[in-house]
């Protein structure tokens, strides 16, 4: 899927258009959240304190590590070392799946304490934003899995394909970095 984005300035994978648009969309989310927070600072601080920073931290480490493994598999793909590609992708997916598990545990725990998307404005944003992020994460895992399947045969377009999937996965990581800081790490006013 290697295409020319601009004739003059060389080629970038076309998926960057998607990634830029999606990141801009998340910036809208961040802005809206922060503005709403200004209107109800005490509520937001109180509710944010109910989140488990350790789980958020664990998820951050999971995504960073998975992203590292995906970057390594792209390197291997460029060198034509398909065995390494498959091994690293399997590890990346394995580690990456843990994010979903941790998130599910987190959601279940919150629900068990009666904290739902309708509880208050903070929890609305928490569930919706992490939910939308989880959707992107799901798409990312599916793309990595498809890449792993495709890595079983020799194929001219593979390098371009794995690069695009890797870019998407790094976007998932990138968005989580900001979500983690904004939702979990912001202190009381």
């Amino acid at each position, binding site marked *: *899927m290697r295409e020319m984005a601009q004739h003059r300035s060389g080629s970038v994978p076309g998926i960057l258009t*998607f990634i830029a648009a999606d990141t801009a969309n998340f910036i809208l989310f961040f802005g809206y959240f922060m503005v709403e927070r200004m209107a109800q600072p005490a509520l937001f601080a109180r509710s944010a304190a109910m989140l488990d920073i350790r789980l958020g931290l664990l998820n951050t480490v999971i995504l960073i590590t998975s992203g590292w493994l995906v970057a390594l598999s792209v390197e291997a793909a460029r060198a034509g070392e398909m065995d390494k590609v498959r091994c690293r992708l399997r590890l990346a997916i394995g580690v990456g799946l843990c994010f979903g598990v941790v998130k599910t545990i987190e959601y279940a725990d919150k629900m068990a304490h009666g904290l739902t998307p309708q509880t208050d404005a903070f929890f609305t944003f928490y569930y*919706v934003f992490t939910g939308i992020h989880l959707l992107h994460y799901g798409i990312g895992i599916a793309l990595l899995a498809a890449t792993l399947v495709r890595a079983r045969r020799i194929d001219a377009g593979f390098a371009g394909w794995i690069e695009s999937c890797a870019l998407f996965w790094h976007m998932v990581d990138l968005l989580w970095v900001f979500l983690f800081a904004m939702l979990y790490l912001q202190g009381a006013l």
Partner: protein
Amino acid sequence: MVARPILSETGDKDRKTEMGIIMASRARSAPVDRPSPNIPSTDAARVAMAPDSLRYVRFCLWMGPVLLVLLVVFFAVLGHNIPPYSAALPAEEIAAHFRQHTTSARIGMTGMMVSGVLYLVWGMGIAKVMEAAERDNDLLSRLQLWGAGFTTLVLVFPPAFWLTAAFRPEADAAILMMLYDAGWIMFDMAFSLTMLQVTAFAICFLNDWRAVPLIPKPVSWFAIWVAVVFMGFCFLPFFPDGPFSRSGFFNYWVEFSIFFWAMLILSIFTLRALARLQREAMEQPVHA
């Protein structure tokens, strides 16, 4: 605004006339043994009679922008949908809308039901341009067309609920509210039908084999992004108010703006692709 097309709306007629004139003038000034368009078996006659596979397509594609204008008038302005009434409002306020704005609601919703069909026409135009790019089969252009067709129903049927309410404004407030809600749920939650349309479009043109693609790749990627963003509507049924409700910042202002710009951008670029296809067709020699 929209790029001026290179050929006129009746480009087809002009081209045939133009070719006819060229042929006729060649016949007049040429040696006696030149083929004449008036003799049915000659190459010139074949050119003049060759089917134009892109006939009517420009008109179809223009129906997209036309529909956008009509939607602004009928849906947004006359329908009082900038933004729609909040799902958190009591039934009496929804009822008040139908009782105070009866005439504009009737005109607006009638206009929507009648003009919704243009979305199908637009989708068919897009399908014809897609056919020039797909090479293995016509699956993607068909999927796009069905997606466009069902989105047409989403433009036609919800207004029927709102028109019903405007038709009987003296009905119980609770009934009017339910009609309003039903229309909005159908309008917003059938989004995956539109996702199908734009995704098929994107996949088709991302696999275009041309050195310079018919549709620039960023436009296809934008279309995929639009499809993914529509998934935000999934949150709508869970929030009667707030930014994810039907009148909220994300599920109304952002999503509806994106739909508007997507229709406009897709129209502009398919019209450009069509102009190029027609140019290429004129340069092609006609084979016996």
